[in-house]
């Protein structure tokens, strides 16, 4: 199994989720994060104090799927999350040794 970790633009989340559901993905976990990268944040000024925020709000998706599906998940993610402009984000793929569904105790791909 693979853990697919994608960092995307927040407003793309709905689109991405729909695209992945289309692939048959039944679950994923989403976290609000702050990204530091090439994309620069807005400058904020409060009564003359200027703060150039280099952190941009992003959304992180964590999704475990079986090895076979992984390439298509990555591809779908890349297509649905992309806007073509800087800061679109990254996808990372890691190996997962084991998966368990807490409710039933099922393990492996059955747990997904």
């Amino acid at each position, binding site marked *: 199994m693979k853990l697919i970790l994608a960092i995307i633009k927040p*407003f793309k989340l709905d689109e991405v989720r729909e695209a992945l559901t289309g692939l048959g993905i039944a679950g994923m976990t989403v976290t609000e994060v702050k990204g530091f990268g090439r994309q620069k944040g*807005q400058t*904020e000024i*409060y009564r003359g104090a200027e703060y150039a925020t280099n952190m941009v709000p992003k959304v992180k998706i964590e999704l475990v799927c079986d090895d076979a599906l992984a390439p298509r998940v990555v591809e779908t993610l890349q297509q649905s999350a992309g806007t073509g402009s800087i800061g679109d984000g990254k996808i990372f793929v890691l190996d997962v040794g084991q998966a368990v569904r807490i409710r039933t105790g099922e393990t492996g791909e059955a747990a997904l």
Partner: protein
Amino acid sequence: MKGDNMTFANKLAASAGAAGLALFAALPAWAQEAAETPTIDTGDTAWMLTSTVLVLAMILPGLALFYGGLLRTKNMLSMLTHVLAVTCVAMLVWVSWGYSIAFTEAGPFFGDLSNLFLKNVTADSISGTIPEYVFISFQMTFAAITCALVVGSLAERVKFAGLMVFAVIWLTIVYFPLAHMVWSAGGFFFEKGALDFAGGTVVHINAGVSGLVGCLILGKRIGYLKEVLAPHSLTMTFIGTGLLWVGWFGFNAGSALGAGSGAGLAMINTLTATAAAAVAWMVAEKVAGHKPSLLGGCSGVIAGLVAITPAAGFAGPFGAIVLGAVASVIAYLFVTVAKPKLGFDDTADVFGIHGVAGIVGSIGVAFTNAPGFGGPGAADYAIGAQLGTQLFATGVAVLWAAVGSGIAFTVAKLVTGLRVSEEVEREGLDLGEHGERAYNY
């Protein structure tokens, strides 16, 4: 100049006598006295100072929070900024030329510029039984809140600069004339005998219709009816609701222009109509198969307040209850059933609540004023005739607001573009237009 307002007070009393309205009949001593030797009544003045403060509290922080809470986090701060800026601009315009246009006696639709920059007023000027500066201040807050009400329709996409241009034009060609028609001696509605105790036409119908025109001209928000646009803080909306209700006593009971029985009547009606409207909205939700909600209760509060505004001194407490409940249910149906079908994007439902409940109130007052319905109207009060007058006045107000605001928004659009770029809209107006965030937790 003092004469103007004396006349204003007299006319009020006179027309009240003519139309057989109990309200002013209840204050004959006051009216007479005022006409003879204009002196300040400290009790009336105390109440009008308080009322002015209360109306300001309705705007800042009241209305700004009510609207702001309904928006997404990223646009909260822009709403607060819009309300603040519009309020301040309206105040400056009011003392510069607004008061002159609204409260000099020149024609049925407009005053003239003879009192530009308040040039005929001094600290000693008296209006009725209160210092004229207090009257001007009180009315100033009305101009400000009406303009600020419109902002709710435009939220999450209107450009700050465009809003400022709109405000100045709209106040001048829409609000001041309508205020003149309703409240000035010689005003069009005033002379027709239309009932409007505290500004149902000038304030609520006007703001509602102007907001509708504005959101149609602006177009829908990105994601409207597609993405989740849930309110970022109903807590803030609730605080706003509370402050609006609290402040509305300045608005309604303050419109009696003194601390007498008229104010007392307006107060109790502003309590009962509102309570009934809040309950009615939540019951309507339940009947429609949903859960009774906080935003429903708050919307009901506003609908009730709006509906009772024209009728605050022209109803009994139980007439007010019926009026509030009816207006609330109609506004509920409009907002939840009609609006999604019509498909326009009135962000904070300014038309759906202020416009709709305002119209219900403006028409309903013809009934609530009748003694048969517990109203203070005279024994020979004729519902039918009054209803005609009310329909006519309501229609004129709707039309005037629609045309005038159309012009104002169009000019603002030509000058500034009126709407922010897609990028700013997506990122939020807070950062895009003001370079600040509402929250940095």
